[in-house]
């Protein structure tokens, strides 16, 4: 059974002021209803004035998604009743959206894939309800209009996605693109919300509303596809309906059947003249986008295709990499893409928490072979833990000094008395069986002894040195 998925994605445009007034969009940590004016409160008589910056941002997105921008787009009122809706309607675009018929190329399940974009339009966010007295049976609800009027764009795809994984990759690529455009900050609360339409070929379509995380989309789709497959297997029909995704339980639940669907009574917003911006689009110069940057990373820094994809998948990572690549592009690529991202992920930290100069210091130590790879990882862990805890950290140099991780070398001479040679002698003495095995031709035994020496030197010896010294001692004692 073929899976058919289409997405409707709401993204918050990262403007300084709201869509129809001059109120600030940065309300984080501020008291409710402090970023409000007659316009965004929807007071009687107040009128909307469109934020040019929001339009510019939306046009950037339209262009990056290869959309065409019609001569004229029109704002419409979407009428419905809800306690957080300031005016009793939401200003959005309906039958004449800002941009139509574009695409975004992603890595599909079977290689490169083009996902068509049906439309991109601009709309305002309503307010927010705060339920007091427990989430199950709140005693009362308060309304906060700080969010009311936050500019959003809605991006609607054609039903071109074929699996939850593809949907996830599409969203990642879309997010990366929006961040490259400088119009979106995925780290802001409520910055992205997704509605997903899912059907199995030949069956009814189900809409899952309001998924608020990237992981949630994949989970919701996986659950929903399984649910639909099971229903069909049992001979039941999939009914056309709207469902909610319950993040905590990882399931979707029925919200209402399509027969009961709201009639939004759209009509053109009389207070805003039609928007004519098709000329404006030509003047918009797009920055380098993820695909172009990935190619450049391969050309300019010699990154492998896999590293290039990882490093360009998030603008913060790409920019971080470029700040430290000067030390040694190949070394930096491995250490950022493989080591750093893994350690960050483990700690649930963002790359923005890591000062590039600190990481550059670490790379320099590695490049000069002042520390071993293993010590490098140890230093990185210590530093990330410090950053997570306090927001600052010591330099890698200081850390290496404090932990005594500087590389120790074996002297080249026969019978030398350096720490590596001493550790090697000890290892051979403590593990006569291994030494014996090696001498009898079992090469793996040498690896065991190398491990023992590394342990004794706390990873500060260069493996090549250890190898050389061990061989010399073992061959001598033959």
């Amino acid at each position: 059974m073929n899976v058919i998925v289409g997405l409707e994605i709401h993204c918050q445009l990262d403007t300084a002021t709201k869509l129809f007034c001059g109120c600030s969009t940065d309300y984080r940590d501020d008291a409710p209803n402090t970023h409000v004016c007659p316009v965004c409160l929807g007071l009687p008589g107040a009128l909307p004035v469109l934020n040019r910056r929001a339009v510019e941002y939306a046009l950037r997105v339209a262009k990056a998604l290869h959309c065409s921008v019609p001569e004229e787009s029109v704002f419409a009122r979407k009428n419905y009743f809800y306690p957080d809706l300031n005016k009793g309607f939401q200003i959005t675009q309906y039958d004449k959206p800002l941009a139509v018929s574009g695409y975004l190329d992603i890595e599909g399940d079977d290689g490169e894939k083009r996902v068509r974009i049906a439309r991109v339009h601009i709309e305002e966010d309503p307010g927010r309800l705060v339920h007091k007295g427990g989430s199950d049976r709140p005693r009362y609800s308060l309304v906060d209009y700080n969010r009311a009027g936050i500019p959003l764009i809605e991006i609607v795809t054609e039903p071109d996605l074929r699996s939850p994984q593809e949907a996830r990759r599409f969203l990642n690529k879309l997010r990366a693109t929006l961040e490259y455009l400088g119009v979106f900050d995925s780290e802001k609360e409520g910055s992205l919300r997704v509605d997903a339409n899912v059907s199995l070929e030949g069956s009814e379509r189900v809409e899952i509303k309001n998924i608020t995380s990237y992981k949630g989309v994949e989970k919701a789709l996986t659950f929903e596809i399984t649910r639909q497959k099971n229903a069909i297997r049992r001979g039941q029909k999939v009914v056309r309906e709207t469902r909610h995704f319950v993040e905590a339980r990882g399931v979707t639940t029925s919200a209402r059947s399509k027969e009961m669907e709201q009639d939004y009574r759209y009509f053109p917003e009389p207070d805003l003249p039609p928007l004519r911006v098709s000329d404006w689009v030509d003047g918009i110069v797009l920055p380098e986008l993820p695909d172009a940057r990935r190619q450049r990373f391969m050309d300019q820094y010699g990154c492998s295709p896999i590293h290039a994809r990882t490093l360009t998948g998030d603008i913060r990572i790409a920019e971080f990499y470029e700040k430290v690549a000067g030390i040694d592009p190949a070394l930096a690529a491995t250490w950022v893409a493989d080591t750093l991202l893994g350690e960050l992920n483990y700690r649930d930290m963002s790359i923005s928490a890591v000062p590039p100069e600190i990481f550059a210091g670490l790379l320099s130590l590695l490049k000069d072979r002042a520390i071993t790879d293993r010590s490098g990882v140890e230093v990185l862990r210590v530093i990330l833990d410090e950053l997570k805890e306090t927001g600052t950290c010591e330099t890698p140099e200081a850390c290496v000094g404090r932990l005594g991780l500087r590389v120790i070398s074996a002297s080249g001479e026969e019978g030398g008395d350096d720490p590596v040679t001493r550790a090697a002698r000890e290892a051979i003495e403590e593990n006569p069986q291994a030494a014996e095995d090696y001498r009898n031709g079992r090469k793996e035994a040498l690896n065991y002894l190398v491990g023992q020496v590394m342990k004794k030197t706390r990873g500060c010896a260069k493996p090549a040195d250890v190898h050389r010294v061990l061989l010399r001692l073992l061959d001598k004692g033959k």
Partner: protein
Amino acid sequence: MGAETLDFRPDDKYHAFLKIVPEAQYGPGRLSGVPVAVKDNISTAGIETTCASRILSGYVPPYDATVVSLLKAEGAAIVGKTNMDEFGMGSTTENSAFGPTLNPRDPGRVPGGSSGGSAAAVAAGLVPLALGTDTGGSIRCPAAFCGIVGLKPTYGRVSRYGLIAYGNSLEQVGPMAATVSGVNLLMSVICRHDPRDSTSLDAPYSHTPTMDIRGTRVGVPEEFFGEGVEPRVASVVWDAISLLERKGAEVVTCRMPSMEYALAAYYVTCMSEASSNLARFDGVRYGPPPDHRKPWHEAFQERRREGFGVEVRRRILIGTFALSSGYYGKYYAKAQAARRNVRRDFLRLFSEVDVIAGPTMPTVAFRFGEKSDPLSMYLSDILTVPANLAGIPAISVPCGKVEGLPVGLQIMGRWLEDERVVDVAYAYEQGAGQ
């Protein structure tokens, strides 16, 4: 800034005002110390603004409408808020939730609506100047019924910021006064570009009326004297048109076929817009709070059922119906098509004539309760709504009487030619006075 206080304690026996400001502040300027009455659907900071509706009683706007700021900037004293049909819905001011206004020319009759309070305040001599709003004739109708002058400006020339919306795409704030000069003065104060209103035009008004109308071509559409126009009213208006001819204007008759659909287009449009505009009055932030123990949709219903008057509920329901899916194409979209036809008709007419003249209202002021059936009430707006559909300027100037009751002459002009309709009205007014 050296504000002074005007003592305002009028004998408001016609119930022109919903709210009086007995000690009104004023400053220096062209209107320094002039008492101005403001219709109660225009926001005034610190002064209760209710749109004559229970649902807004107790609402004190935290900000001034742009027109109010402009009045204050010229030193005017805002002395009170005038009565009106609830949310502007009506042609008699009988639909006020706080009781009707009486017509100072005959207290047994309605003052017209919906700016009936403003018209009565001027006609009774309580204030020299007042602001009204005109969605389908709401300035011109009461001006005609009360025997004063009222101008509906070109759509976009006067800011709507702060005007509590009824039919956004149709309505304009406009001046009302006893004379054309008064209207002209008030217009020059309130007509400004407003960056807070996206439909605002940059066409300020600075004009000295002239009575020289020689060579002005005056078109008189046959439809403006059709069935329903009271013959004695028609006769008085024709006399007025003849006077314009004697003053050197050239009068030609013409046809306006779109009139047939204008009224329907108007009502579908304004009711649709109203159904959306009034949705915010759900008891969450205005009026008495809803019963919080009930589910919110029930609480909303209850609040709206109790808070809105019959006419308002009727229009919300019709508007909601006209916009609903399956009917949009049949009603709203058709109304917009008819509206385009009206615009086209005016464009064609205005390529041949400079202004269009006719009666403002088909009859003189009704007696209270005379029109109980809403449809016959709606029909009385037939002559005023075309100007709103097209967004063009139109003025009503008193042009005589029938059985002692005033009749209004309506002059409509090209888009942005508010000055010209003022001139023609001025020429009539001055000519009639000679």
